[in-house]
């Protein structure tokens, strides 16, 4: 399929592959899209930008047959089409990587990739070929992944790679990527971009949604910006400054980035972790954290940062090691113990571990603090909860019709903000944020940075685990780097990216580099 299009792709005036005009879409209480527009050329990487809840995912779900539009026209190769089911979109050569991962957790990676298209012999599944084909796709992506591994045992990053492999396997003319790199690390992002460039050369049109501004410059040809469900404009990526794109997105120019406020090196210790161990994931990790300090955790995928955080928080059992809070050794056997000691943990997987999707926004925000709102006879102070939730909605600019909207109906980025709000409301002294800005738009991101700085200034101790080095560099007073379950070093805040990468890939144990405390 793709081969026929590549000739057209050579000419800049190629006929659009996709044209969407006048698209409307409403959900109960929400106008998600209003006269939205979008155009995609063959061989083009077209970035779709906008704040959280701007309607990007909704627009692409309409293109891929998940939602039915209320009004508007969708044209494919100049022909109007009605796309009413995912299957039909696939048949028309459109495939999508969904923002919220849509994998079957009990199946293997290969089974997920070829679901609905299993190779068969005499009606019997040809599992060997299935695995071979999947392995071939992984190889083309330079991805080291066993096709027969069950998806539920994979980290989110690996799951994301499986989603990408699945989308690639369709060999579509139109490939939609809804925040494919939100969970990825630099190495995988580089790999993904290589794939994108290859597809582009084959004439595939790619819709690329991301909140990482640097990526936009790196790979996209054009940028379409949406705001509040409406079309704002389309600009060439190369000649448009990032600031212009941002101001198109947010409708104003952003104030300057927050600065790291230095913390006193003699502030009292808030948290000390000594010789934390568990199998090969956490190998003798020790570090300390002072009040008012932000400690960044950098590392490649699978470095063990999440595992370390979960072990500290009591979410997983640990095999050894001590945890000291404010100079006292504490026993933490469960998240409840940790929260009681004033430790909060924001999980990297909001859908699985963060959000109670069936509850409304208000109750999700209050979930960790319900006891504070509980009066005599266990009766809840609903008004107090509403007030707190509405405060958080304002503070974090959560886009939701009201605080009683079901959390699962929010856009991805806004769900993430709800989870952050939950921990802010809990008012812990020690906060561990695992990928806190995953899927969050630029404007909100800088708000969250400011907020973290302010919390640190109040004397809270904060750990930020992030796969985005700029984020780590911008926020951290010190940077801990992990590799294969070891803490390979702790660097001062202003360190270079090269220094961090060196520690992140340091396979040997290097005792002398550890500044344990």
């Amino acid at each position, binding site marked *: 399929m793709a081969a026929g299009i590549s000739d057209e792709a050579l000419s800049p005036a190629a006929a659009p592959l996709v044209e969407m005009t006048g698209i409307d*879409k*409403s*959900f*109960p209480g929400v106008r998600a899209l209003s006269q939205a527009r979008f155009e995609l050329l063959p061989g083009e990487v077209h970035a779709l930008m906008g704040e959280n809840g701007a309607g990007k995912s909704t627009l692409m779900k309409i293109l891929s047959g*998940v*939602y*039915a539009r*209320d009004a508007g026209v969708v044209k494919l190769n100049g022909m109007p089409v009605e796309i009413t089911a995912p299957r039909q979109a696939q048949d028309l050569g459109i495939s999508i990587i969904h923002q919220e991962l849509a994998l079957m957790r009990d199946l293997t990676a290969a089974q997920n990739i070829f679901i609905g298209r299993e190779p068969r012999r005499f009606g019997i599944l040809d599992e060997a070929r299935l695995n071979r084909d999947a392995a071939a796709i992984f190889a083309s992506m330079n991805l080291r992944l066993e096709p027969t591994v069950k998806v539920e045992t994979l980290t989110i990053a690996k799951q994301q790679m499986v989603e990408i492999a699945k989308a690639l396997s369709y060999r579509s003319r139109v490939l939609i990527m809804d925040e494919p790199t939100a969970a990825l690390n630099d190495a995988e992002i580089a790999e993904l971009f290589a794939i994108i460039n290859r597809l582009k050369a084959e004439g595939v049109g790619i819709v690329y949604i991301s909140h990482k501004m640097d990526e936009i410059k790196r790979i996209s040809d054009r940028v379409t910006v949406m705001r509040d469900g409406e079309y704002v404009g389309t600009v060439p990526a190369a000649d448009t400054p990032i600031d212009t794109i941002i101001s198109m997105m947010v409708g104003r120019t952003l104030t300057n980035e927050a600065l790291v406020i230095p913390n006193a090196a003699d502030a009292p210790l808030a948290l000390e972790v000594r010789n934390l161990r568990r199998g090969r994931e956490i190998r003798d990790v020790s570090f300390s954290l002072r009040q008012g300090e932000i400690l960044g955790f950098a590392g490649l995928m699978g470095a063990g940062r999440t595992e370390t955080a979960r072990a500290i*928080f009591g*979410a997983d059992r640990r095999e050894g090691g001590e945890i000291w809070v404010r100079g006292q050794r504490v026993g933490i056997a*469960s*998240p*409840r113990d*940790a*929260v*009681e000691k004033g430790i*909060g*943990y924001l*999980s990297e997987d909001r859908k*699985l*571990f*963060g*959000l*109670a*999707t*069936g*509850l409304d926004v208000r*109750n999700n925000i209050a*979930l*960790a603090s*319900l*006891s504070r709102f*509980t009066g005599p*006879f*266990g*009766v*809840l102070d*609903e008004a107090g909860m509403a007030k707190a939730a509405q405060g958080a909605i304002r503070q974090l600019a959560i886009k939701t019709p009201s605080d009683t909207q079901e959390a699962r109906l929010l856009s991805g980025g806004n769900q993430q903000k709800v989870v952050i709000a*939950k921990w802010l409301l*809990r008012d812990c002294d020690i906060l561990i944020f695992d990928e806190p800005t995953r899927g969050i738009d630029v404007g909100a991101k800088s708000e969250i940075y400011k907020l973290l700085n302010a919390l640190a200034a109040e004397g809270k101790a904060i750990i930020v685990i992030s796969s985005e080095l700029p984020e780590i560099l911008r926020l951290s007073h010190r940077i801990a780097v992990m590799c294969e379950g070891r803490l390979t070093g702790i660097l001062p805040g202003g360190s270079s990216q090269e220094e961090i990468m060196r520690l992140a890939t340091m396979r040997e144990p290097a005792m002398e580099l550890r500044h344990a405390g």
Partner: protein
Amino acid sequence: MTDTAAPAQKSGIRISGAFHRLLAFSGLIALVVVFSLASPNFMQTQNILAILQATSVNGVLAIAATLVIITGGIDLSVGTLMTFCAVIAGVILTYFGLPLPLGVLGAILAGTASGLVSGTVIAKLKVPPFIATLGMMLILKGLSLVISGTRPIYFNDTPGFTQISQGSIIGALVPALPIPNGVLILFAVALIAAFVLGKTALGRYTFALGSNEEAVRLSGVNVDRWKIAVYATAGSICGVAGLLIASRLNSAQPALGQGYELDAIAAVVIGGTSLSGGRGTVLGTLIGALIISVLANGLRILSVAQEWQTVVTGTIIILAVYADILRRRTL
């Protein structure tokens, strides 16, 4: 799911919440209308009272099941636990001859204790609720027979006992309204359960557990404690059901109870509570229980042959739930 994709209310006509809720009764109302037209005997005060009376035990059990189902669990032991509590009341009142309030308390505490055991097995030993409560169902069934010596315990020596369900406090005040106490107790239990679910921390955790238990645990909540509390509360409610049935039959019948869990769970699910947890209402459960008893009563009043009653009941249960699904989809 299709309902997320369904375009809704472009027309601006927003149907008010109260009206929306009223429509939930539609299946029930349709049944009542049909039976009223079909038989003049249906819409008699006495028959209405009989229907309410017939709902009381299953309604109370269904409310207990609702709590557990909202957490994403299931309780198969409600029926035999009810019997067990009745037997305990019998032992206290008839064998030991203690005063009535102690019997009432004993039955309810027996229910709570059993709920504590189920809840602990589920929360601490991580045994799936289906298995834990299936085991409890059998254990309680056997224990009821053992304790009672496999014979009914009569409450002839406790004169007030039949009044618990069959007397009528309202009737004593307003003779035109001889609503049996059993029905009042059902509504009281429903009100309390709705209050607990809607207004208290226990209720909030009940929904949260059913929505995403792991997220609740990672929020620092003592998940085990709240889960056990839910099963214990459900158990206490089964204790009330045990008192109701014992009072109605003026005896604790040790062999009764198995099979009642299915009717209770059916009422819950007909009432719109999802077996996967996280959502549900007591009002829905009440309506579900009423649908079941109106159907049974109406078909009997019409003297439909019993084998056909079963066929019709099955069909109408499916249709009632389907109608409710259609209603929610269009609103």
